[in-house]
């Protein structure tokens, strides 16, 4: 029932989000909201395999593959971004297959470590394959405003694009979680052997979950490139920005749930920016120290993430001693 209430809250916020551009004329606030929406989409996409207990720290790989595909097609071959979008998804899916098939054999931290290595290898390839990627210098999206080129003078189009993207990814994640696949992933996360004995092909479930995740992340990557105008290996394949950040958002909000990533992204994105703006310029590095402390404190005191606070409350009411079950702990 707390989920119901959250949903209601979500719908209210959504309505607000749609009308905001009409009332708020600060482009900076729009920009911040756009970043938050991107972050929600990223985190929710990252979170899909987490339903099954598979935590990746290499999602920058898919983000980068998608972004690079879109940018290379557009900048080098003049292909419209609207074709670049499905192409980016397709290539990310391919990356997902290549990464997932072998890595599925690994569990827990070993899966996580291998995903980091995977993203790092791609980053180095992007640096080295200069004929295609223009190496470290990267590619710039030329400024030719218009919907055809997915390039805009004003901030509103990307505000709406990212809003739709966020809603779409959260919706897909929601549908997946409540589909057979979601059931199978969750079952596998809490007891893989039992799930298998019940006829659930858990490896296939993880595989499909990771494919959804990689495809969506690739899609977000393409949009993001046109939002930020630059592709460059150290940004697109950045472990901190696109592998760790979604995971941190997820942890703070509550991994493996639908609303956890949303809450995490909504809190952490502005927090990161705020700390950078107000602390980073007072004393370089201070913002990260505070950010790190926030993380450690969260992990120590609310290991289930913010969502678990809501859960805990409601389950306390119903039976007194219920504890939030780690729905996503990898056993």
């Amino acid at each position, binding site marked *: 029932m707390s989920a119901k209430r959250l949903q209601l809250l979500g719908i209210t916020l959504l309505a607000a989000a749609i009308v905001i551009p009409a009332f708020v004329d600060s482009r900076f606030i729009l920009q911040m909201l756009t970043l938050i929406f991107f972050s929600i989409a990223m985190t929710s996409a990252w979170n899909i395999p987490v339903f099954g207990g598979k*935590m990746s*720290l290499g999602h920058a790989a898919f983000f980068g593959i998608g972004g690079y595909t879109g940018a290379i097609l557009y900048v080098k071959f003049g292909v419209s971004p609207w074709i670049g979008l499905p192409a980016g998804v397709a290539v990310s899916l391919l990356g997902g297959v290549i990464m997932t098939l*072998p*890595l599925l*054999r*690994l*569990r*827990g*931290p*070993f*899966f*996580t*470590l*291998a995903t*980091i*290595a*995977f993203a*790092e*290898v791609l980053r*180095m*390839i992007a*640096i*080295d394959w200069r004929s295609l990627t223009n190496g470290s210098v990267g590619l710039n999206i030329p400024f030719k405003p218009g919907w055809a080129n997915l390039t805009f003078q004003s901030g509103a189009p990307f505000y709406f694009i990212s809003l739709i993207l966020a809603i779409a990814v959260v919706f897909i994640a929601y549908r997946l979680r409540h589909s057979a696949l979601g059931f199978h992933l969750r079952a596998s996360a809490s007891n893989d052997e039992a799930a298998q004995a019940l006829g659930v092909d858990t490896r296939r479930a993880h595989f499909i979950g990771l494919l959804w995740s990689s495809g969506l992340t690739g899609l977000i990557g393409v949009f993001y490139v046109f939002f930020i105008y630059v592709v460059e290996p150290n940004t697109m394949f950045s472990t901190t920005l696109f592998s*760790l950040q979604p*995971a*941190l958002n997820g*942890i703070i909000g509550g*991994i493996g749930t639908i609303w956890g990533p949303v809450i995490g992204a909504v809190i952490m994105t502005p927090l990161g920016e705020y700390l950078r703006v107000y602390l980073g310029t007072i*004393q*370089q*590095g*201070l*913002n*990260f*120290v505070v*950010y*790190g*402390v926030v*993380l*450690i404190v969260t*992990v*120590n005191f609310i*290991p289930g993430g913010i969502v678990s606070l809501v859960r805990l409350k409601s389950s306390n009411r119903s039976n007194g001693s219920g504890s939030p079950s*780690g729905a996503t*702990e*990898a*056993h």
Partner: protein
Amino acid sequence: MELMIQVLVSGLLIGGVYALISVGLNLIFGVVRIINFAHGEVLMLAMYATFWLNKVYGMDPYLSALLVLPALFFFGVLLQRVVVQPIQEASANMQIFATVALSLILQNIALIFWKGDFRTIQTSYAMSTLEVMNIFVSVPRLVAFLVALASILLLYNFLKHTFVGKALRAIVEDNTVARLMGIRVERLYLLAFGLGAAFTALGGILLIPFSAVYPTVGVPFTLIAFIVVVLGGLGSMSGTFLGGLFIGVVETFGGTYVSPALKEAIYFGIFILVLLVRPQGLFGKGKGTEEIGLK
């Protein structure tokens, strides 16, 4: 041929450094079963400590080990007690994030205190080399290699033959039963973390003669150390040594014969391949390393 031998020698030397840096991680990963992403930052702090002892008191870096090792030992103990112990029972994922956050904090504290400057120490032996039949051997790297070998032997014997070492191996298997033997598990965890930090610090001290210190110096080493430990097998000291050498040689050959820019990509690729074929690591025996994933 001569080049081949030179490449091999250089690879083994840098591999020795990797091994030394990884030994501490293996002690922590293998015993406390914590994935410590702040490993490189422990290295960084040790390097700064060595640097300042030299800068302010003119102490020789190798000599400063006498102060730096105990200091970092206590730092490791402190980290275990304050940051790690509360999450010891939490899922591996939570531990990863707590230590990622820790690494972020330590890096930026270093930045606040010491700025982004690249600091180096001047020593008489920093750039000295031995030349044997046209093969060059850098003296500080050779020292690092030998110390790596020595400390791995030391650690191996410590774990194998001392009472405390055996207890450390025992708690890896079953810490409840270990408690029934009167083994003070928490204390041993502190010891393991402290020792892990001290060995890492030793790596830092030996790096100083040929590497600059700056806040993010530890970052690449964290991942290298993980790769070495996983390849070498969790808890296996000899495996760590071989794993370090393996990575060093792969990287140097790849760098020389393929492209210097791709040397990291090559060993990452090999790491993923090895994990797939032998999840227990190249030199690990017995239970697959992936067993910990089950914990």
